């Protein structure tokens, strides 16, 4: 039995208590993820076991105590008879165990009794505490256990309902203290140092400070969003949709948008290639009826609409375009054929297509190709179109429907579901409060997402459940999603303040493949480029596209604003101003999978920086503290540079080749020795200095290194040959200076 109580014993007690806490972290989630009840008995058992180990109770006695405890607990849990008095339970107990042992051997594990399971669990705990005791008292190393504790909790946190937020903080605190103390013990044991209170103070105070400091920093510091999305919804849906939502969506064009939401995976399938002069969005169709869950058409499309043939003017006027601008062409080669054509914003005519007529659907503005009465899927066609230009002045002048007020034509672009939560309307009013015209209001809504921390995410996107509104869920709860979330929300917000808007589907500009000599570029559009965006109606201009989807770039939107500002500085130019809306905000906002690519990183840092800025302005005191801490840490790191510098040097010189490596490395060694405190005075020769160094370290390396160095500088030996043979000596010596 342990009887002496010195510093050593106190530390050991602390170690046992801390490791008990760590073990506890293993037991905590169990009642949540399994059907185990009465967990406290197991926790007490773990504590009792560790306590017995701490007091170094004779194994026979401690074993007896533990066995007794296990039996009593199992008896009280599984038998409702008093422990002493009636002996029948003993037979039942043993029978139950025996039966289960046989079942175990027969691999019929489902039918083993609960009592047996509990017993096994006790045994497992017994083994665990023994292992802990062994690690603590004999090996004095606990890193593996610590690491596995972290892995265990993080895995449970990710894949089970267990919330490990607090657990991980506790583990960090306990674990680092534990390992710090163990290191001290290990060092004193190895060096046979006498343990004293002063020594403990010297060790414990910095240790506690460091752990406290780093934990506080880690806790208070702003944390960036995970780079990898939460894999669980993805895995679940991938595995067949056992979780919530309608399963994973394959990206690409689809007609049914009545139930939006849920994760989707990227799809690299090529849809078409286009050769044209510049990047632009490709339109397919629009939708006008928001149902609260997705999009639909307010009127059933009957396939009727204005028809046109190759070479004829297209009976479709999305917006007023500049008649002066040069027509450009786009030839499209389709891989994944549909019966509809993708078209640019201001199409003039179809130059070439293997169809005798095409029909623009009057409701959705979808262009469908026909051969006779049959719909055909075109493999190739060519557009002549103009680049759309929108008059900013005209848009800024718009404050109401004007003449359209009376016609009621635009009513379908203003309709909202009746059960749209009020807070959506309130938010719309709030966003557009400071603006007096439609354009600025629309821009305010467009920018709202990027400025309020909305996140682009393809995976962790839920499907609204029950009577939850799709937009409401996105705006107020998840604040993460992909183009459908952003574009739908913008349409709804605009309609809430009586601005007519609609939802457009199509493709982004795609990936540039080759650039021809004649200035034309070939783009590849895959299913990943399928996209949705917003069009806003201005009476004087027509439908103007807006791009609310964030996730990859808010910088682009800012540039976009600046462009406008410079343009508004010239108010006396009445002519329409260039504003290539589909192009400017587009480049980074495709539906490409998040998490990869340089663009993603850029905005990630941008977001982090924004986060830091807001954090600093909100928590001046803590920021100040953190700043001071950083400076202090910097000073300490600098002061302790002799400890880490050798590793930097070793790494640096490891791969270096060339004539001067050895002299340089030798000079670096001299500097490092000076940092270490072994200074060579100016009048001291290298040889005598080397002797001193070798005496100090009990080594021979320095003399040998110096001998070679002398040959280089006093004899003009070729230095290049020396390094390979000297490197090992050099590394050995410079490593000694870290001790």
């Amino acid at each position, binding site marked *: 039995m342990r009887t002496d109580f010195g510093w050593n014993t106190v530390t050991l007690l602390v170690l046992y208590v801390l490791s008990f806490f760590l073990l506890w972290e293993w037991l905590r989630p169990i009642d949540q993820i399994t059907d185990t009840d009465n967990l406290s008995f197991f926790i007490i058992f773990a504590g009792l076991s560790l306590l017995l180990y701490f007091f170094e109770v004779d194994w026979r006695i401690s074993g007896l105590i533990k066995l007794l405890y296990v039996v009593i607990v199992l008896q009280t849990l599984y038998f409702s008879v008093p422990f002493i008095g009636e002996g029948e339970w003993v037979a039942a107990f043993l029978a139950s165990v025996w039966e289960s042992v046989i079942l175990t051997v027969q691999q019929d594990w489902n039918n083993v009794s609960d009592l047996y399971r509990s017993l096994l669990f006790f045994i497992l705990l017994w083994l665990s505490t023994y292992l802990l005791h062994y690690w603590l008292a004999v090996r004095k190393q606990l890193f593996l256990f610590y690491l596995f504790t972290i892995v265990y909790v993080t895995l449970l946190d990710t894949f089970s309902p267990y919330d490990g937020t607090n657990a991980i903080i506790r583990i960090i605190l306990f674990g680092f203290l534990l390992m710090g103390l163990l290191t001290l013990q290990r060092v004193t044991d190895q060096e046979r140092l006498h343990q004293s209170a002063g020594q403990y103070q010297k060790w414990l105070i910095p240790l506690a400070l460091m752990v406290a400091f780093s934990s506080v920093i880690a806790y208070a510091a702003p944390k960036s969003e995970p780079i990898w999305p939460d894999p669980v919804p993805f895995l679940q849906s991938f595995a067949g949709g056992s979780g919530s939502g309608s399963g994973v969506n394959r990206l690409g064009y689809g007609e049914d948008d009545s139930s939006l939401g849920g994760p989707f995976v990227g799809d690299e399938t090529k849809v078409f290639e286009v050769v044209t002069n510049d990047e632009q969005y490709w339109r397919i169709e629009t939708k006008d009826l928001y149902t609260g869950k997705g999009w639909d058409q307010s009127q059933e499309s009957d396939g009727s609409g204005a028809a046109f043939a190759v070479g004829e003017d297209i009976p479709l006027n999305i917006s007023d375009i500049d008649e002066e601008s040069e027509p450009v062409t786009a030839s499209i080669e389709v891989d994944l054929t549909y019966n509809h054509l993708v078209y640019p914003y201001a199409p003039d005519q179809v130059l070439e297509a293997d169809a005798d007529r095409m029909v623009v659907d009057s409701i959705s503005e979808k262009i469908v190709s026909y051969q006779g009465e049959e719909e055909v899927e075109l493999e190739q066609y060519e557009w002549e179109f103009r680049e759309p230009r929108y008059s900013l002045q005209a848009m800024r002048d718009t404050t109401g429907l004007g003449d359209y007020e009376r016609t009621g034509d635009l009513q379908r672009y203003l309709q909202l579901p009746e059960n749209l939560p009020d807070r959506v309307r309130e938010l719309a009013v709030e966003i557009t409060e400071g603006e007096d015209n439609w354009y600025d209001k629309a821009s305010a809504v467009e920018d709202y997402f990027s400025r309020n921390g909305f996140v682009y995410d393809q995976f962790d996107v839920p499907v609204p459940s029950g009577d939850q509104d799709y937009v409401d869920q996105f705006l107020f709860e998840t604040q993460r999603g992909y183009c459908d979330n952003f574009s739908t929300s913008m349409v709804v917000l605009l309609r809430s303040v009586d601005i007519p808007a609609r939802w457009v589907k199509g493709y982004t500009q795609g990936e540039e493949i080759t650039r021809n000599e004649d200035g034309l570029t070939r783009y590849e559009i895959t299913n990943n480029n399928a996209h949705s965006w917003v069009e806003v109606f201005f009476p004087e201009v027509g439908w103007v596209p807006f791009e609310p989807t964030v996730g990859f770039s808010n910088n682009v939107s800012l540039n976009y604003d600046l462009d406008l500002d410079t343009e508004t500085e010239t108010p006396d130019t009445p002519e329409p101003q260039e504003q290539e809306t589909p192009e400017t905000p587009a480049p980074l906002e495709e539906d490409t999978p998040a998490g990869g690519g340089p663009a993603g990183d850029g905005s990630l840092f941008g977001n982090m920086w924004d986060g830091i800025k807001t954090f600093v302005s909100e928590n001046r005191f803590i920021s100040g503290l953190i700043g001071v801490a950083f400076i202090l840490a910097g000073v300490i790191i600098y002061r302790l540079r002799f400890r880490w510098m050798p590793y930097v040097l070793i790494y640096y010189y490891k791969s270096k080749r060339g004539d001067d490596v050895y002299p340089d490395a030798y000079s670096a060694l001299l500097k490092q020795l000076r940092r270490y405190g072994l200074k060579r005075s*100016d*009048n001291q*020769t290298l040889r005598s200095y080397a002797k001193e160094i070798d005496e100090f370290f009990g080594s021979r390396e320095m003399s040998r290194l110096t001998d070679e160095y*002398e040959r280089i*500088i006093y004899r*003009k030996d070729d230095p290049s040959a020396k390094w390979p043979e000297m490197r090992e000596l050099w590394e050995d010596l410079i490593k000694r200076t870290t001790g």
Partner: protein
Amino acid sequence: MYHEKLETILHNIEKVMIGKRTVAELSIVSLLAQGHILLEDVPGVGKTMMVRALAKSVGAKFTRIQFTPDLLPSDVIGVSIYNPKELTFQFRPGPIMGNIILADEINRTSPKTQSSLLEGMEEGSVTVDGVTHRLARPFFVMATQNPIEYEGTYPLPEAQLDRFLLKLKMGYPNAKEELEVLNRIQHSPPIEDLEPVITLEELQALQKEVKNIVVDDKIKQYIVDLAGSTREHPNVYLGVSPRGSIALMKAAQAYAMLHGRDYVIPDDIQFLIPYIFSHRMILKSEAKYDGIEPEDVIERIVARTRVPVQRVAK
């Protein structure tokens, strides 16, 4: 390598001389660098034994001149004597015509006789009655002088002192060494049993080889820095001449060879400099009164001068 041969000479000397390794080393350095040694010490500490051991080890002709106040130059360099049989004057060479010469108590004789020896040392030849006689090769003089405070001495002039490559003190052996000396000498003086370990021709080859020991520009610069410092030092009346710098370089080459190196390192310079510079500078009277010795000044200069350890910037 020559190093082994030199080691055997050292070893030979150590058989006879106990605890005098530095003196033995410096003697060999001086022999290799074709310089001469001025030993300043009281009688009876083994100066003669030292030189005889060296001479025996290299198989050289050893002569000894005991300087007395009445010694004449002709007693040193030799004299022409009329030979009545052949009716001619015949030159009878003096003791200077040996390879290794012990010039004992050189400051006891008159300056005239002193200079006859010193001139021979410098020129490598002597002229008697208009005939020039070349001195033997190798030619190595080890002159001893009693400490100059003694009565009845003629101190060597500064210009003459410059002719000696090294000036060193033998010093008394410590008690243990002295005991060992007694033990060895009891039966037969070990000097009688010494065998030559190197021929004179080999020694001359070594003397030539010394010139090939590498002296890097940085080392030369270091020598120049040190010599220059002696000329500027406030305690010094007359600093070290360029001949002193040359002596230091040559001695350093020989010392490097003795230690098996074919290049000179700053350690060589630092070791040799007191032996080479101390008799080549004159301190101011004030400094002398303060009890400052040339060796102290040199020590301070060395402590102040930066050792070249970096390669010259390209």
